């Protein structure tokens, strides 16, 4: 049996809208992954530390507040500093197209916008980690 994929689902910033994060966490778990959910109001430092401790292959950030341009680059920077660039960073939420392109250029593996299907997210993670 292959080891299950380990994913950290994280809610950075001040936003409390956790419906999406919780739905994704359950969907990934139903798809056979091991999911750790950080809960609310995580700083980039807390998220990267949790990812290191939990030894995850994927970090999923849920951001709906418009703060992604402040938060995501900082997470990428910390991953590089800690030599964790092999961890795939996936972002979901209200991310305008232009910002999504920029984030992907900076190193984000995928950006999932509203309406993205759970299946497409599961499939992406399986392919990216394989």
């Amino acid at each position, binding site marked *: 049996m292959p080891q299950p994929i380990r994913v950290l689902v994280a809610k950075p910033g001040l936003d409390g809208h956790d419906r999406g994060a919780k739905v994704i966490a359950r969907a990934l778990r139903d798809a056979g992954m091991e999911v750790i959910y950080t809960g609310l109001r995580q700083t980039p430092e807390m998220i990267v530390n949790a990812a290191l401790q939990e030894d995850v292959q994927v970090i999923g950030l849920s951001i709906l507040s418009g703060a992604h341009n402040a938060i995501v680059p900082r997470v990428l920077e910390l991953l590089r500093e800690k030599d964790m660039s092999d961890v795939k960073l996936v972002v979901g939420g209200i991310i*305008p197209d232009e910002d999504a392109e920029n984030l992907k250029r900076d190193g984000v593996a995928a950006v999932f916008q509203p309406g993205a299907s759970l299946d497409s997210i599961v499939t992406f993670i399986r392919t990216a980690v394989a």
Partner: protein
Amino acid sequence: MKTTERQHTTTSGVPVDPLYGPEQLAGFDPSRELGPPGEFPYTRGIHRDMYRGRLWTMRQFSGFATPEETNRRYHYLLEQGQTGLSVAFDLPTLMGYDPDHPMSPGEVGKCGVSIASLEDMEILFRGIPLGEVTVSMTINSPASVLWAMYLAVAEQQGADWTRLSGTLQNDILKEYIAQKEFIFPPRPSMRLVTDTIEFGAKRTPRFNPVSISGYHIREAGSTAVQELAFTLRDGIEYVDWALERGLEVDEFAPRLSFFFNAHNDFFEEIAKYRAARKIWASVMRERYGARSERSWKLRFHAQTAGCSLTWQQPYNNVVRTAVQALAAVLGGAQSLHTNSLDEAYALPSEHAVTIALRTQQVLAYESGVANTPDPLGGSYFLEKLTLDTEAAANDYIRRIDGMGGMIAAIETGFPQTEIAAASYRYQREIEDGERTIVGVNRFQSGDEPIELLQIDETTGRRQEEKVAALRARRNNAEAQRTLDALKGAAEGAENTMPYILDAVRAYATLGEICEALRAVFGSYQETTRL
């Protein structure tokens, strides 16, 4: 054309029979279940003439960037015929942080307007007479602080507090349940809410100190019944605390107001509003022995469902919103916010918010639905749905009573897990194609690009500079004195409102005031449940 099983259930998953007729309403006594509009149990509405007497208040929720920019939007909305204001605050304000707090970068002015001090509140309402315009404020954990700023601005304008009319959301229970913008633990938070109810009953008799909100519960993914039940049970909790404080029920209950979602399922939503009035009237009269009819009447604001808006084919959102708004009106709402077509992407542009307001004006002035109260009353289907919704909500209310009340239920995670399960079920139904979302999982086509409101990235810096300049300019000794006095009051049992007013008038900032309260009350961390 394929029809699936799921199309014969409501949005909340309640099965719908093939046909409704008298057999589903056997034993139905209209005089007991309905009564005339304006009479107990108010199923048909809280006024005899409903919208013939006065239309609902058209109140668009609005706020972004700096108070200067939001003030300009308010003047625009009032010029366009909007009849009340509704303030959206940004996340740092909702969490009681100043713009220069380490948690604030990237968030200032993004989801609403940034208000850090009385100075910002003065700018927000510049040129807007608070004695005449009614204002609703969506603020919860630090609600008493923002309300104190508002009252201080009204005072500066020479407005009489006893004539001020408006609404403070101030519903902390639904924050723990759904919206999650909490600062302090539940019990000290409830004490702050009770302080505002008590202060309001004595000093601002026309202001609604709490708007008990199902909106966010529904947005978090609950069913219609859960939205209704948890909201009304929250209302019961506030009443219990106010009674415990020593207030008479009829002294404060008439000023409790409610806030519900208007989601996709037309009849389910109308049934929800009718059942809400009916249950609350009984709770007030039977459970609490309220004697004033004003205590029995459930007044509510409605907002169309933000979570129903789609990123794909955004113009379809205008149609969704119109249908949802129609449900709110047929359900007897006292005020209404219609979402803008671009809100799956961003805060609304001026163009989009104008269409949303025009949607309400078309309903009010062209559709004819405002001509007679509860025009759908007597529909077999609607009456059956209303009865079923009432019964299902009462079941939940009894279960929560059995747990020892809403705070105990929140502490065990009961409403949170019920909502998470419902939201996951709903998402799976969309995923499996059992539930159709037009333009998302069926009828897809290319998306038309739309113009979006851009929040100026310098907002954060400008707000930081403003608060720094204020701290340099004000009398710091006086600000510190008021903060110390507030801490003393918080440690004791006195009403905190007069102390918060003093701190606000001394230009202590929101962050400083909340920090003083954090020092006494502590902060709340929820136990995360999936």
